[in-house]
């Protein structure tokens, strides 16, 4: 092959190499711009990732919903319809396999279904929040400390949702972003 052809092919490959992360960015930016913001009550714990750095895993209070459908499989995609409760936090209303036509919803993964009390357990996909490496563990401690004061659970994740796809924007303790809260 001639040098010119190789070079042109390389340019194509290079464009693809830039396009993949760029496309990831555009998808998320559009959700952050035009999606709706929701508050999910949550609890952080501290694991790590070899390539992407430290993150905290968020375990959400919203993790189950009552439903009469019985036919569920592990790891299956499920759409959870959501609404805000009186305090402004998210609660789950119903679950369905098809995309709901009305209202807000979020895509989740089925964990298991309990036939005894008709409750479907699911996990929300936006459960990793990346933090500066020194802060990730402190964040877990800070949450535990904040938990001890008067309010029941004052840690929540701010999530933007559009057509079921979600972007986790930030995590707050007592209305303060967790990174700032840790510094105090």
């Amino acid at each position, binding site marked *: 092959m001639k040098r010119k052809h190789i070079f042109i092919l390389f340019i194509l490959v290079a464009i693809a190499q830039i396009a993949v992360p760029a496309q990831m960015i555009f998808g998320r930016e559009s959700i952050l711009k035009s999606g709706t913001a929701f508050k999910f009550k949550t609890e952080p714990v501290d694991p790590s990732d070899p390539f992407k750095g430290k993150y905290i895993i968020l375990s959400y209070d919203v993790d189950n919903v009552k439903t009469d459908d019985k036919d569920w499989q592990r790891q299956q995609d499920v759409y959870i319809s959501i609404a805000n409760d009186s305090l402004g936090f998210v609660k789950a209303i119903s679950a369905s396999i098809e995309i709901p036509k009305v209202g807000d919803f979020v895509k989740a993964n089925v964990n298991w279904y309990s036939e005894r009390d008709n409750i479907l357990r699911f996990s929300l996909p*936006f459960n990793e929040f990346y933090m500066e490496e020194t802060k990730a563990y402190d964040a877990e401690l800070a949450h535990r400390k904040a938990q001890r004061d008067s309010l029941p659970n004052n840690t929540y994740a701010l999530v933007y949702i559009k057509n079921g796809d979600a972007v986790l924007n930030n995590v707050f303790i007592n209305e303060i972003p967790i990174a700032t809260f840790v510094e105090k």
Partner: protein
Amino acid sequence: MNSKLIKELPDLLANDVISQEVASKIEDYFLNKQDQTPNRLFTVFGVLGSLLVGLGIILILAHNWDDFARSTKTFLAFLPLVIGQCFVAFSIWKKKSNAWKESSGTFLFFTIGSSIALVSQIYNIPGNLSTYVLTWIVLSLPLIYLLKSNAVAILNMIAITYYACEVGYSFGSFGESPWLYLVMMALIAPHYYRLLKHHKNANMTSIFNWLFPLSLTIVLGAFVDQLSELGFLMYLLLFSLLYNIGKIPFFDEQKLRRNGYLIFGSLGIVIMILTMSFDGFWYLERFFFNAQETYVSTILFIANLGLLIYSYSKGWLKTFNLFQYIFVLFSMLYVFGLNIPIIGTIAVNLMVLALGITTIKIGADKFHFGILNYGLIIITALVTCRFFDTNMSFVIRGLLFVFVGLGFFLTNYIMLKKQKSRVESLKH
């Protein structure tokens, strides 16, 4: 080695072994040869440097700089990638040396990974490690051919193997069979083929001769789904295939240390069969034909058989070597002898013994002490295994050990003597 010979030249001259003319000719020859391979060292250090810098960048970015705004972080995610691309573009356009191409390719490989990782970090995209590695491979695989880069090929092979393990051996949840692994290995194969064809004796080629069977050995287990009993058969068939590939004259005529297929195959077969020679192994609970493992085994069996028939038609099978045929015996044993433990155990023990003797014979024929003693070690291992799980009396066990020990002494002694007499006869 070249320089060693040149250093010996004055000594050879002084002792009148060669003439001055021959000495200068030899010197010229090696100096010329050195000129043709000038920057091999440079390539190695270039690649090593890029590797370290690339990995370093991944680590620095993983710190996750809170103080930067999201736009700054995004810019930083793309910066190394674009720099890497510029280096590669430069070395393609200016037709730079291999050292340039290998190092820039290695650097670009790592920056691709770091940019995707950083973007998922900035936007808190939950990571599925296997998808991430897959994207990384797809974006970097073309570089192997555009740069003709061995380093990128090796890195891709490692990444592909890692991907297959991540998908196939997932802990906790159900593992799936990593079929894409086969596709991606097939995409690297042309590069390997080119190496075999044009650089048969290069060191790089022998690295691939080791990496290919290594990767296959690691990943095959990921294709075991429900019928884990057949996993042993699958591995035995794979090792047998590797052995038969290693016996193709193209590989067999090379030095043993360059022939990863043969060594992998031989060690694999022996270890598998030794494992199965235990009494308890042959109580299989269930067996059914309609399973993924059966199909994989069938394909491997046909590949073995095909290669053997091809070798026969080419006249490569001059001497009988049990290692090459053991898979037929073994597959039959596996299918028919499943629920009759006593037959399975006895047959397998005899097979190990026969393999040991075969190896000793090959070693004796080739005058190769390594192979000879390898055969003795196989038999020793067999005896040691039986030491633990049979009810033989201590006297018999003791005698067995004494015999095998004597075998070590005698065979080595006889061979040493034979070799001496051969050297003597060559002298006269």
